[in-house]
């Protein structure tokens, strides 16, 4: 392994600018003549709009324009869309899809819904004028609860009777019922997967510009997928033709899913910039982020697990109500269906599974993918159920998992719920995690805690996830409206340095370093001579962006394909220059050698020759610049075991994570430092979900957790250090053997934490977040 190649803990290339204040985030960018936007937002969860009077606002100091939904519609700007159709039970071909206007047309459906746009010379003037827009609201009853939305006395959308978006199912109902009939034991668990607010530290923002001379738009936007933004905004919203719209996602301060989606703000500002003839900048205030970023999770589920007398799983039956919010966000429909129920086999051999999901509309912010997206919900449900079954049957929780793991020789393994797992060794991760967590010493530690009046608990989580979503044809067959391939472009410069462009996007994952390592490894170019460029539709090839831990598995594979093409062409050039047959050229680490001789050309010489082709093979094009598109053969399946150990003070409910161990199988690891960082961050978010975070609406649909004063973000003193290790079964289905590492921590950790806390508190269910109060109550009940 070279010091900068695959597997090396290379320090990040991007850090210098971030550490010195030279990052370039959307709100850092200012252009001549720029104006500022403020959105008038609904203060009501559900109301009719009888009229909007903009005259006072329009006359206020510095106001350039006040625009409403009527004007947006008059200009033919289309509504926001959802890109994944879910076919339902009983042959229903399409989900109910209410129209989602970017600016309200006669009705608002959640607090924070967009009513009007105010454009002014300064941000202060825009904000002040927004308060002067008079909206005549007629309040309607609000539908809030996930479990009570169906058949509520109030229907939110005409297009969605009973507030149902879809009633969907997967698996074999009859086989599942039959297995239950013969079960020795049935474990039933009701779980709530608490609603979360993503809270990337950089609030969403956009800067829209229109050039009247060229007819071009430029949109800087906090996006995880600038090409997808351009595609949707041109094809569906119709704000600008695709070839005239340049979308730039510069440095983006975290995403976690929330910056995948095409939101009202960027659509409206891109439309309005041409209308007002001035650049428009909009930057969310954090309170706007709370109200209008797509939220995550929010499931209410019942799970039943059938077991034989030995604790072997026979069947799993699940019903889930999934809150989709007031409208369908860009990929909302897929999250509680194909991103969720297809993972219910987990790492186990459960032969029969049936799950049905009702997606419901409520008067709350739209809910869509948030770090893990469906897989945390599946893992939490399954691992809570397995742990409960172990307790009920008095089987050690590690042992019940061992008895049910898919064995290493069983791959490829077809689950009863769509996925075919390529490879894995779940037992290896469990044993390693048990060793790292010193499970053998737990009984003594528990005694020690008890001697001090404390309680101690140990919780397991064995997870699997599906990353690198694809292949495109399969996505299409399941209702997805997009292809999920990735592209790469490797451009040698004449001096031997390299520019790499790919359609994924770096918003903290270290692509500029990790992808450079892949290219350095494959092409033998020093890492300092490699520049990775992402995030600008005018620079790189069309690509699908970064989410679902897809960047290395899909984007990295595209880079390898492009590198292979470079090597192939290099061989032709080397054969000519070294006067050998192409078949006799051997390539290794940047050098093209005539087999069995010391005649060699370095790739930098090849590049120079390609751009100054004076002595050059006939019929070969000049230049050394190759592009590849890669459509994956399957998802990748990272898996692992996390073990959490807590100490609880039963007199106060205070819970401390005293040890947290994670063992993950990510296949090949490009940069272990970056991967560990991804695991740490994921666990941090998962512990946040388990113990601290929860988006709460009151009965009127007012968000009562709308700031950092009310929504408990994990802080440094809420979290422990993490004990992180890996196992490795490289994926046989992509050229790097990688699997993806971005979401594992957030998927695995919530059940590990709750299993540990409930273990400490006597075994009864505690819903997330396990606040001090809930833990105290559980301890009281247990005593």
């Amino acid at each position, binding site marked *: 392994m070279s010091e900068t190649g695959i597997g090396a803990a290379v*320090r*990040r290339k*991007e*850090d*210098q*600018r*971030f*550490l*010195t*204040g*030279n*990052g370039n*985030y959307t*709100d*850092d960018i*200012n252009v001549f003549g720029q104006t500022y936007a403020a959105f008038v937002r609904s203060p009501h969860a559900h109301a009719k709009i009888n009229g909007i009077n903009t005259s006072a606002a329009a006359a206020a100091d510095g106001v350039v324009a006040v625009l409403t939904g009527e004007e947006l519609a008059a200009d033919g700007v289309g509504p926001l869309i959802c890109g994944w159709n879910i076919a339902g039970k009983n042959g229903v071909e399409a989900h109910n899809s209410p129209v989602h206007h970017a600016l309200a047309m006669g009705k608002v459906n959640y607090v924070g819904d967009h009513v009007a746009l105010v454009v002014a010379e300064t941000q*202060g003037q825009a904000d002040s004028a927004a308060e002067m827009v008079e909206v005549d609201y007629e309040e309607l009853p609000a539908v809030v609860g996930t479990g009570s939305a169906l058949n509520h006395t109030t229907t939110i959308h005409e297009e969605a009777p009973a507030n149902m978006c879809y009633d969907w199912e997967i698996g074999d109902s009859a086989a599942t019922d039959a297995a239950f009939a013969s079960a020795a034991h049935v474990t039933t668990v009701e779980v709530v997967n608490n609603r979360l607010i993503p*809270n*990337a*530290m*950089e*609030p969403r923002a956009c800067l829209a510009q229109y050039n009247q001379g060229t007819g071009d738009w430029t949109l800087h936007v906090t996006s995880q997928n600038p090409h997808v933004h351009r595609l949707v905004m041109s094809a569906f919203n119709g704000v600008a033709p695709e070839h005239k719209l340049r979308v730039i996602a510069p*440095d*983006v*301060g*975290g995403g*976690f899913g929330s910056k995948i989606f095409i939101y009202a703000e960027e659509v409206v500002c891109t439309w309005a910039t041409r209308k007002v003839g001035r650049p428009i900048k909009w*930057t969310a*205030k*954090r*309170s706007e982020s709370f109200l209008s970023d797509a939220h995550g999770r929010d499931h209410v589920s019942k799970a039943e697990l059938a077991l034989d007398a030995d604790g072997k799983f026979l069947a799993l039956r699940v019903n889930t109500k999934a809150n989709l919010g007031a409208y369908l966000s860009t990929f909302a429909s897929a999250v509680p269906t194909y991103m969720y129920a297809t993972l219910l086999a987990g790492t186990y051999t459960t032969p029969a599974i049936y799950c049905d999901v009702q997606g419901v509309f409520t008067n709350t912010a739209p809910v869509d993918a948030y770090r893990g997206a469906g897989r945390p919900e599946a893992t939490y449900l399954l691992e809570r159920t397995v742990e409960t079954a172990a307790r009920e049957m008095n089987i050690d929780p590690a042992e019940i998992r061992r008895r049910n793991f898919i064995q290493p020789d069983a791959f490829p393994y077809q689950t009863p719920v769509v996925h075919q797992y390529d490879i894995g060794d779940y037992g290896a991760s469990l044993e390693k995690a048990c060793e790292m967590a010193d499970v053998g010493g737990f009984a003594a530690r528990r005694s020690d805690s008890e001697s001090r009046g404390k309680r101690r608990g140990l919780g397991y989580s064995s997870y699997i996830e599906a990353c690198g979503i694809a292949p495109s044809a399969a996505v299409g067959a399941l209702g997805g409206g997009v292809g999920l391939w990735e592209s790469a472009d490797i451009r040698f410069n004449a001096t031997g340095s390299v520019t790499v462009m790919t359609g994924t996007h770096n*918003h*903290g*994952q*270290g692509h500029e370093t990790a992808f450079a390592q892949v290219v350095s490894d494959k092409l033998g170019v020093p890492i300092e001579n490699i520049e990775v460029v992402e995030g600008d539709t005018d620079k790189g090839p069309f690509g699908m962006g970064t989410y679902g831990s897809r960047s290395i598995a899909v984007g990295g594979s595209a880079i390898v394909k492009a590198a292979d093409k470079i090597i192939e062409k290099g061989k032709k050039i080397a054969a000519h220059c070294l006067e050998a047959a192409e078949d006799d050229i051997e390539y290794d680490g940047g050098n093209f050698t005539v087999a069995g001789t010391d005649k060699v050309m370095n790739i930098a010489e090849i590049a120079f020759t390609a751009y100054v082709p004076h002595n050059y093979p006939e019929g070969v094009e000049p230049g050394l610049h190759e592009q590849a598109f890669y459509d994956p053969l399957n998802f990748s399946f990272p898996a692992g075991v996390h073990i959490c150990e807590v100490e609880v003070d039963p007199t106060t409910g205070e819970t401390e994570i005293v040890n947290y161990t994670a063992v993950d199988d990510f296949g090949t690891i490009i940069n272990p*430092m*970056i991967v*560990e*960082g991804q695991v*740490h*961050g*994921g*666990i*941090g*978010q998962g*512990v946040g979900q388990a113990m601290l975070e929860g988006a709460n609406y009151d009965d009127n649909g007012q968000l009562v957790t709308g*700031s*950092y*004063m009310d929504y408990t*973000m*994990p*802080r*440094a*003193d809420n*979290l422990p*250090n*993490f004990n992180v290790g890996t196992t490795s079964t490289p994926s046989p289905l992509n050229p790097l053997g990688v699997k993806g590492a971005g979401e594992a*921590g957030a998927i695995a950790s919530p059940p590990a934490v709750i299993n540990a806390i409930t273990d400490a508190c006597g075994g009864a269910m505690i819903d997330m977040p396990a606040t001090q109060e809930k833990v105290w109550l559980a301890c009281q009940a247990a005593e």
Partner: protein
Amino acid sequence: MPTVSMTVNGKAVSADVEARTLLVHYIRDHIGLTGTHVGCDTSQCGACVVHVNGKSVKSCSTLAVQAEGADVATIEGLANGEELHPMQAAFKENHGLQCGFCTPGMVMSAVDLANNMKNLDEATIREQLDGNICRCTGYHNIVKSIKDGAERMGG
């Protein structure tokens, strides 16, 4: 509009601003130093931390006029040319940042912490970091970075 003058990173600066202008907006929008970030509107996240007369301050909770005549240091003034400050170097070495958005505030808080407390242990760092929120790292490597950075600074 009042004229507000101060020293930022050793340079005298002056701008006419609305009286309600916050120090963070003065620095970002009027002086043009965009390394200091705004991550919330309740003075919780700490992305906007700068040093005012040698002490760390959330520049979103200070009016620019309150900093009249002050000596202000921002993240842009920390390195010596291209050579990173020991705390910045420690963040790079220990992978103490991911998306980079909270980083300027984290580093400015960490420098102030290391200046004021010696022999920092992990628990103290975690407790003192209460005013800075990071969503990416789970804090593990930030804590490690600050311990390392404080040692590099001689603490």
